[in-house]
Structure formats: structure tokens, C-alpha cells
């Protein structure tokens, strides 16, 4: 192998490159949370947190923590100048009503028709962790997924013809950012927008269960 997969921060940074000024963006827990660290300060991107924060800013200095201000991961954050607060129903009105330009979620799997599975690993998983993922997945103008291309455990590909895990939503993913490539969902399935340096088409296809397309 002559390529070096991106680490999680690298995936986040790659996503940040593609977010233009002025977008309202919600970042899911996991890799997506790191995206905001890679948006330069002079590019105004407004981060929404589903617990009612519009304009979430970076973590505070340890001596500046405000216990009344957390993000959807319950981490202490700051508020950007211009930010505001709403209650939970209004906050999800923003998410579900199509007002977010972008939502970035982590996932277990994405299918070539845009299906996403990110909430339960099996049908009989006894305890459920849905949170706000289903709301964000159906509501945002664009849904991008950030995840490793293959699973850490058994090495199977997360880029699927059909999702094997329970769905979060059907046909909603626009792009997938992995440690190996940037893919977009097209009418033909996964199109490849970008690969990491040194990766060949064959190597990327080998690591993808679904068929990839190059234009």
C-alpha cells in the first residue's frame, strides 16, 4: 500500500474544506464533531446544535466554562457572536423544516441509493440509541456522512449495495467522506469525487462492497 488513510481529524478537515461561508450546519457526534475545528475563523459557518444552540463556538478555556451552555454531545461550548438560543421544538423545527444547509452524521453503513444506517447494529439490539439522528437525516438540505471506509472489526466495507443494519432514513445521503475517498450518491450509485493520494481506483473498489463510478 502506497497510500495513507486519513485519521479521524483528517476526515473532519477534508469535510471542512467543502463547507462554504454562510451555511447553517449541524454536526453529529463522533468524527463530525471535529469538523468545526477545521473551519478557519474568518469563514463564517453557523453551527446548529439540536439542544437549541444556533452559532455554537469552540470549547471554552477551562476557567471560562459556562455550565448552562453545552452542545448535543453535552460538551461545554461557547457561543459565537450573533448566536442565539431556542427551545427544543423550535430547534428541531430548524432541523426538520429544511433550514440546515448541511448535516454531517457518522454512520455504520451507507448504501448506493443514499440509505443510511447509524443507530442500531442489529435488529435485536436490546437498547436503543436513536437521539436526533433520524430527524437530522430527513430534514437537512444536504446530508453528508463521515465514517471509516471499512469497519475496524471484521474489515467489511461500510460502502454498501444495501445496508445490512437497521436504517436511520432512506435515500437521504448526498456525500460520504471516508478515510480513503469522497463519494457522492448519484442516480447510478456511488460516484467518486476524490481519493487520498496514492490510492488507485482498483484499491478503492476492493474496499467497497458497492460498485463505484468515475466520471
Amino acid at each position, binding site marked *: 500500500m502506497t497510500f495513507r488513510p486519513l485519521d479521524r481529524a483528517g476526515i473532519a478537515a477534508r469535510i471542512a474544506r467543502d463547507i462554504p461561508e454562510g451555511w447553517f450546519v449541524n454536526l453529529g457526534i463522533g468524527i463530525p464533531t471535529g469538523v468545526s475545528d477545521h473551519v478557519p475563523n474568518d469563514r*463564517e459557518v453557523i453551527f446548529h446544535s439540536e439542544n437549541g444552540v444556533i452559532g455554537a463556538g469552540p470549547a471554552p478555556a477551562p476557567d471560562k466554562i459556562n455550565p448552562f451552555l453545552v452542545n448535543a454531545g453535552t460538551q461545554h461550548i461557547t457561543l459565537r457572536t450573533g448566536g*442565539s*438560543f431556542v427551545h427544543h*421544538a423550535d430547534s428541531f423545527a430548524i432541523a426538520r423544516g429544511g*433550514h440546515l444547509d448541511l448535516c454531517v452524521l457518522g454512520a455504520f453503513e451507507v448504501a448506493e441509493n443514499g440509505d443510511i444506517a447509524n443507530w442500531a447494529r442489529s435488529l435485536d439490539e436490546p437498547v436503543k440509541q436513536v437521539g436526533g439522528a433520524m430527524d437530522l437525516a430527513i430534514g437537512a438540505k444536504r446530508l453528508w456522512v463521515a465514517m471509516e471506509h471499512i469497519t475496524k472489526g471484521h474489515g467489511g466495507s461500510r460502502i454498501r449495495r444495501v445496508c445490512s443494519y437497521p436504517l436511520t432514513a432512506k435515500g437521504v445521503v448526498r456525500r460520504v467522506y471516508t478515510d480513503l475517498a469522497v463519494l457522492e450518491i448519484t442516480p447510478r450509485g456511488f460516484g467518486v469525487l476524490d481519493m487520498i493520494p496514492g490510492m488507485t481506483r482498483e484499491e478503492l473498489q476492493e474496499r467497497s462492497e458497492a460498485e463505484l463510478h468515475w466520471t
Partner: protein
Amino acid sequence: MIDKFVPDVAAALADIADGAVILLPGFGNGMPETLVKGLIAQGARDLTLVVNSGGRDTGPTADILASGQCRKLICSFVRADSVAGRLFAAGKLELEIVPQGTLAERLRAAGAGVQAFYTPTGADTLLAEGRETRVINGRNCLLEYPLPGDVALVDAWEADRWGNLTHRESARNFNPVMAMAAALTVVQTRHVVALGDIPPANVHTPGVFVHRVVHVPA
């Protein structure tokens, strides 16, 4: 740097297309009068106007209706003796009457991604004729659909460059819900304030619902 201010009303309204659905707030006050004048000057036709009341013989609602630009009026209240009432009687204006609370809720639904809802309001009345109803917990309910706008014309007291707004007293009325219900929300604001001047907990309409702002001093 995000800056939603546009230089003038003409620039703010230039691309409103024929056939657009226009959301117009206001209830005795809180109506964006300068934007309505601008829309009359802009000249888009075949419009659907969504506004609480059909108005009287003068004022912004009467003016935009009298201009002949509106094909349809969706509102809760029309006086027979008004521009709207006479246009309707003459067959020159379609009319859809919506109870005021249902109007507000349909606008919110459009903004909040609710695809339809059941309400008891109007379910046992003439307004329900030919429409889908369902008994829920013993109450007869009417199925109502969202009412999205192509454009909302919004009135504000203060605005910053992110489009965060405040509204004065009862001039708030339909402004926040119409702002969230439209694909393009254009605001006229009495005052321009610096980012951060509106306390974060007291923004009445967050900038996420606002696309263009014009400064219209008193």
C-alpha cells in the same frame, strides 16, 4: 463575512417570479409596508397572497390586491365591503378562508417540516365539506396541510447582518412564523444593529430563517 443586507428594496425583491406564493404578516401593525410597495413596483403577477385579513379599501393589503397582481387570497377574514370582497364578488380573485389559528399552524408546519396535522378547528363546519376528517380521542378533526411560501415579506424592529431579528410588542404577530415558512425571507428593518447587540436569549426570529434584509428607517 455573512452579510444579509441588500442595498435597497428593488434589489431585495428583483427575482420574485410570477405565480409566487407571498406570505405577508401583519395584524394591525407589523406589516412590511415598504416591501409591499416594492412588490407592487416590481410587478410580479399571478401571485397567491397569504395574509391574515383581506384588509379594507386602503393600506398595503388593499393596494397589492387592487394592483391586479394577485390571483388568489388565502386569509382568515374578508370584509364584503373591501377591495378583496369586491374583487372576489366580481370573480377576479380566488379566495381560501382559513381559520386564523389553523393559518398560523399551517405556516409553522411548513417551517417545521410537519407534513400534515389534525385539528378540531373547523372540523364540524362548512370549511370541512369534502375534506378528510378523522375522529381522534372522541374529537372530530380536520386534516390540514402545511402552507409554505415562495417569499415571506417580514417586518422587524432590529436586524443584524446574520439576519437575527427583534419585533416590537404585538407587531411580532405572524412575522416569525412566516419567516420560517418561506423559501426566501426578505426583511425590512427599522434599525440596523451590530452582530451581538441582540442578546442571544432574546432573538425573536433567528437569522437561520432570514435571507435578505433591507434597512427602512422610519
